[in-house]
């Protein structure tokens, strides 16, 4: 089986039975990345427990408007981090969090980063994206009217 086929089969498996999907009541931490507008929002809830004098992740759940890959990655990642301390979980990058799915095709790497971002936002909210420097105009701004200025329309006379 080729790598792309193997990847889509693993995604399908994860989608058929997504783990830890849905909002969690009484969570200790919540993290969100992306925005609903972009179609790319992912939110993660985390609950801790004490184990051997350490605080470890009891379980994590997620909700997303992202793509299927984001669901699949969030599903495997929430399983992977259960039982880890927040520090251990924060050390995992998007590649490790999506490891059970195998290497992601380049176009899907962003989906795994979404999961990593939500986890970071939940576990270390202050460490968030530090650089708040202005971005180049995005595609979304281009066609959603970045400028809200009212426009005057002048119709050409009909011939």
């Amino acid at each position, binding site marked *: 089986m080729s790598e792309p086929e193997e990847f889509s089969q693993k995604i399908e498996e994860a989608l058929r039975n997504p783990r830890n999907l849905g909002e969690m009541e009484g969570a200790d931490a919540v993290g969100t990345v992306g925005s609903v507008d972009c179609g790319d929002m992912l939110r993660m809830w985390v609950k801790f427990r004490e184990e051997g004098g350490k605080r470890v992740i009891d379980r994590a759940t997620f909700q997303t*408007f992202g793509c299927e890959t984001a669901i699949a990655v969030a599903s495997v990642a929430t399983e992977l981090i259960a039982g880890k301390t927040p520090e251990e979980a924060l050390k995992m990058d998007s590649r490790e969090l999506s490891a059970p799915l195998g290497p992601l095709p380049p176009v899907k790497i962003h989906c795994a980063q979404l999961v990593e971002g939500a986890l970071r936002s939940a576990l270390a909210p202050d460490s968030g994206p530090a650089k708040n420097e202005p971005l180049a105009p995005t*595609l*979304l701004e281009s066609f959603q009217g970045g400028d809200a200025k009212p426009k005057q329309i002048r119709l050409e006379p009909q011939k």
Partner: protein
Amino acid sequence: MSELLQRFPGAQRALFRSYHIGGCSSCGFRPDETLAQVCERNAGLPVEEVTETILASHEAEQKMQISPEDLSRRLQESNPPVIVDVRAREEWDAVHIEGSEFLTQELMQEMMTTWPKDREIVFLCHHGVRSLDATSYFAGHGFSNVKSLSGGIDAWSVQVDPSLPRYHVE
């Protein structure tokens, strides 16, 4: 990146279609970043491959467009595409193609969450540039059958339906 975008106007659309970069504020880049830096922080994308993709973007964009005549023909056929208009509200109020949909936040969300990814969608704007951005944006989100009306509603007025007046935005 700003220099790159000046030389290759389609670069941002190509980056988003292929690598999900530059679409919204969570995957955007700064004007002063280099392509190599952007690749580096996107899980170390190979710069050569990304450069190839940008160089091939002109041809890719030709394929993403539909001419006014072709769209007019498609609309007469049995399962016509849905037309999504991405212009400003004022422009829509002045002129629009009958049966087309105006893109609101609500419609956008509905499209992202419930529309089949293989649904045939034609985006249109005034002159065919913003609609190309919208087409790339949806293509980057997995929509496989999206096109942009070349020349926009202006070309439509000239080539297909002269009863729709042309207009200027002031």
